Each structure stands twice: as structure tokens, then as C-alpha cells.
């Protein structure tokens, strides 16, 4: 069983700050971590391997420092790590990112591809399913439980707003996972020592045979015109008093604004 886990290195903060002049993320002074949802994908990969055998490869696309995320994954026990890095990838949106990752996965070969449901910085939740589309394989998103992994198929539970779906798929398949799936393991000392020594495989645009026009900013259908934090509006009114008094004041206020 060849398992590929796609991870993203993200800033370790819940409050993403944006440089208003360049419209890009401010990364200075912010530590980078593996996207928390991707940690669950790594754990899922390791568990599938423990049960069904095979190899877990962790893959990321990013600048050279993304290597740190890959080493962290190795310390948890993944077998191999591949960094997809090239200046040509700079500025990729989700489409161009998914294109490049799918090309890399095509070279690596995979029976099961695992992704976190989304990244905590961009929050698009698009890259996973887009990779599956590029590879022309099925995908199942929001996996909360993996019931069974067989040679030729998989049965999983997909989290829904109410309850869950049980879905079977043939392989290869791409899964995106939610936190409920598992508890990511701690790194081990032997893993950390291995991570320190590990040689990280690197792939460039040429290595994966990607079409140049599909890469980076120019290959991205999404063009960011402006990113801004919405201004906090101050024109609000706090109502005091008993519930009845507040209801009366609310109705009056809304009528005054011609909302009702």
C-alpha cells in the first residue's frame, strides 16, 4: 500500500495578520507548524500502514524552509519525505498548487492520498479535492473514521452536518480528514534522530514534468486584487434593561432604521 500524505506548513497563529501594502501574510516572528488538520492525515497514514503494511510518504510544496515540516513528519514515523520546491511555483493558488501536487503524486504513485480537510491559514479546503480531479480519481472529504482498508478498496465514514455517511471507494482514492478521526501521535526519540539525519527528496517543476503555463502566479486562475481585514464598525447600540424593555427598544430601533 502506497500512502501519500500532503501537508502544508502554516504560521502557528490563529490570528493571521496581513501586510496591507503587499496583501501577503506577515510571517515574520511567527513560528511555522504543520497545518493541524494535516497532522491527523499523517496519523491516519501511519495507522493504515500499521494495519495494512506499505509505505507512507509525506509531500509538501513550499519554500526550502518547508523542509522543517517534513522532518517533523519523519519524527512521527513516516518513511519518506518529498519537498516540491521551485521558484516557478511561487504565487500558486489552489488550482496551480493542486496541479503541481498531482503531478508529483503521479511520479510517486499512490493507492491512498491523505490531506487535512483544509489549511488554517487559507481555509479554502480546495486543494485536496482538486488533486483528486487532476488525477481523475475519486475523493471523499471530511473523513471522521476509516472503517476498513482492503487491497482493492476502502470504507470510511464522512462527517455530515447531522450524523455521517458510510462510503466505499475503490483505490486509488483521496481522502480529506477532520480532527475527529484520530489523535496525532507524539514524535519518538528514534524518529527525531532519524529526522535529523534524513535526506529530504526534492522535486522541481522539471522533475514532475509540469506544464510551465500551469504553474505559479501565471498558472493561477485566482488573481488576488486586494486582501484586507474588515474594519470593525463602531455604529452599534447596546440595549439595557429587562428582556421586555430590550425587545421594545430593539423593535423601535429597527423601525427607526426602516428595517421593519
Amino acid at each position, binding site marked *: 500500500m502506497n500512502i501519500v500524505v500532503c501537508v502544508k506548513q502554516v504560521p502557528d497563529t490563529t490570528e493571521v495578520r496581513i501586510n496591507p501594502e503587499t496583501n501577503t501574510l506577515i510571517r515574520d516572528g511567527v513560528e511555522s507548524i504543520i497545518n493541524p488538520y494535516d497532522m491527523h492525515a499523517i496519523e491516519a497514514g501511519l495507522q493504515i500502514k500499521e494495519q495494512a503494511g506499505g509505505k507512507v510518504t509525506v509531500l509538501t510544496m513550499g519554500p526550502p524552509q518547508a523542509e522543517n515540516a517534513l522532518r517533523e513528519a519523519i519524527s512521527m514515523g513516516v518513511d519518506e519525505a518529498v519537498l516540491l520546491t521551485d521558484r516557478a511555483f511561487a504565487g500558486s493558488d489552489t488550482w496551480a498548487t493542486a496541479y503541481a501536487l498531482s503531478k508529483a503524486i503521479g511520479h510517486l504513485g499512490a493507492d491512498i492520498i491523505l490531506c487535512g480537510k483544509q489549511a488554517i491559514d487559507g481555509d479554502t479546503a480546495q486543494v485536496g479535492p482538486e488533486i483528486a480531479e487532476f488525477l481523475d480519481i475519486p475523493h471523499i472529504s471530511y473523513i471522521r473514521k476509516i472503517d476498513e482498508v482492503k487491497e482493492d478498496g476502502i470504507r470510511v465514514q464522512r462527517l455530515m452536518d447531522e450524523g455521517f455517511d458510510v462510503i466505499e471507494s475503490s483505490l486509488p482514492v483521496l481522502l480529506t480528514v477532520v480532527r475527529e478521526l484520530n489523535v496525532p501521535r*507524539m*514524535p519518538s526519540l528514534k*524518529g*527525531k*534522530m532519524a529526522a535529523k539525519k534524513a535526506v529530504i527528496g526534492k522535486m522541481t517543476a522539471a522533475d514532475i514534468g509540469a506544464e510551465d503555463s500551469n504553474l505559479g502566479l501565471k498558472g493561477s486562475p485566482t488573481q488576488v486584487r486586494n486582501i484586507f481585514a474588515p474594519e470593525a464598525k463602531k455604529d452599534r447600540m447596546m440595549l439595557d434593561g429587562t428582556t421586555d424593555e430590550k425587545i421594545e427598544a430593539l423593535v423601535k430601533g429597527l423601525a427607526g432604521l426602516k428595517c421593519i
Partner: protein
Amino acid sequence: MDYFLTEEQLMIRDLARQIAEEKIVPVRAELDETGEFPHDIMKTLAQSDLFGLFIPEEYGGLGKGGLELAIAVEELSRACLGVATTYAANALGTYPLLLFGSEEQKKRYLPDIAAGKRLVAFGLTEANAGSDAGGIQTTAKLDGNEYLINGTKQWITNGGEAEIYTIIGITDRSKGPRGASAFVIEKGTPGFSFGKKENKMGIRASATTELIFDNCRIPKENIIGKEGMGFVVAMKTLDNSRTGVGAQGVGVAQGAFDEAVKFARQRVQFGHPVITFQAVQHMLADMATSIEAARALVYAVSRFVDSGAKDVSKESAMAKVFATDVAMKVTTDAVQVMGGSGYMKEYPVEKMMRDAKILQIYEGTNQIQRNVIGQALIKEAAKANK
């Protein structure tokens, strides 16, 4: 302060700290309240290879020494001394096998211990044999190819939870101290059972029980070392483990100090955070200074032990007595700095103060440690004046 730890030692510290912060701190109050054994945390420590730290690589361990073990113990103790006691007592129980075990015994037990699959306990203390190890009543009588064990061990850390027990029993009472021997006994051996779990003041996450041997038969090969070596095994084991108790003292003191500083920065009285008051600053200054001194001593003695020094009794007793007295003082002062809040269970320092007390008592009371140091001083002086 920078102790010039190697990259690997820093790695061990960081990993133990990560486990402490992510897995232990969130549950320590509950473990203290319920006295439940921390099975999940032990599993995490096992997966992280921390049980294999001090076990040679040929038996599946990482082949590190007492300093690395002390570093890990310190970090765990910073979060919860109950958990750290469980972890450290495992090493204590393993030392007899590591130091005196036959090749067969090592092959049989060490890989499972290194992997954290089987927990170990050390059984020396009895109702009438604590500080006076000479009062041991448990007997081991050779009967054909078996030893027949009878007696009761008391206050044994990891009792009931451990799968492997290294115990001291009397094989020949007429020989006095040379009549004791060490044995390895597995849980589940007929005639071996456990008494009630003790209800303790602190380190409540750790399990403490009696070990009851009632005509318990074990194969002759289960003797550790030779007949009559029991006290040597016990003393050398304690020489090696004492720095670990010192490390527990450094850890719990650091944990309490961190809480006290955090609180003193936030707590406002007379219009200022209490940390701005000299009375509080001086307490914190003394706490920080004594912790650093204790850590320096524990690390230095650990390195001395790891160097293969022949006699480390005095130095390891010094590390134990100093660091654990510091732990008691610092945890008590942390409660004082935090005042009424420190006394309440909403904050962790009252637990740390309760936990710290055992460090002055177990693995040789601090009075016995001073005896050890005193006897070594007499010996040294006599040698110098020959």
C-alpha cells in the same frame, strides 16, 4: 543557564517537555483527584521511546545514561510528580537487571522494558525495613531448582501496575548483610499477589501497593547476580537512581516557581503587580537561585555517575538531599507567594507542595542520605590522615 547539553540531550528535553505540556498538564489535577493510574501517558512515553533512554542499544534502548534520564525526569516532574514517579520508579526497578542481570535476563526483560511494553517495580522496603534495610523479613529459600519466596513488601511504587518486579529477600539469615539476594519475579506468578493500593498525600497518580509473597515459587535462574549479593545490588541500584530523585526535585521546584512568577506578574495589590514588591522579589530570587544550584548539582553528579566512577554514593546522596530539600522549600514558598490562591486547588502549586514532600522520604530519607554522606566523609578523612 546553559548546561552545554548535546543536541540529542536537548532533543530529549524538548520531547519530554512537549509530552508534559500537551499530555500531562491538562490531566494532572484530575489524576491527583482520582488517584487513577496514568495508563495513557505511559503509552505515550513508550511510543516516544522515553522508556528506552538508559537501556543499551543492543537491548532495544537508546544507550544513553543517567544525565539523559535526569533530563527527562525533570521535565515530567515539572508537570506532575505522580507521573514522573511512575516513570522514575520504572528505571529504579530496571537497574538491578541492568547492573547485575545475566545476559539471559537482560535479553529476556530489557527489550520489553525499553519499548515500554512492561513496567518495572523495585521491592526493598518492608514494614520493619525502611531506612534500616537490614530488617528485611522476606525470605527466599532454595528448594531444588526453585526459590520459595515468603514475605510482604510495603509501599512499592508501580505495585500492581508493573509486570516485572526486582526484589530483595533473605537467602541466609546467619550471614547478616551478606545473606540477602536479589530476584526478578513476574506478575502472575502463583503465590504472588498485591495488597491494597495506598491512599497518599501526594504523587497520587502513581500506584503504591504491598507485594505479598505466599509460598511463591520462582526458577533458580531468577536470582540477580549471586546469592548473598542482595545488598550490593540494592545499594548500587540506589546509587544510580538517586540523581533521578534529585531531578524530580529540580523539576517540581521549577514547575512551582514558574507558576509563582506567572501569578505574581498578574496579581495586583496596592495598585501594583505583587512581583514589583521587594518582599516577593526576594522570595523569587532565592527560589530561582536554589533551583539553579540544585540543577547544576544534579547534572554534575549525573555526569559523574555516567563517567563510570566507581563509588558515587556520597555524590548521589548529595544530589538527592540538596535537590529534594530545595523542592520542598520552593514549592512551599510558591504557595506563599500566591497566598490564598496558592492554597486552592484551582492552582497547581498546592499539589506540587504535597507531591514534593515524598522526595525527602523515599529512596532513602534525607536523614539517611546525610548518614551516607557523613560515612563517606569519615572514610575520606581517615584515608587522608593515614
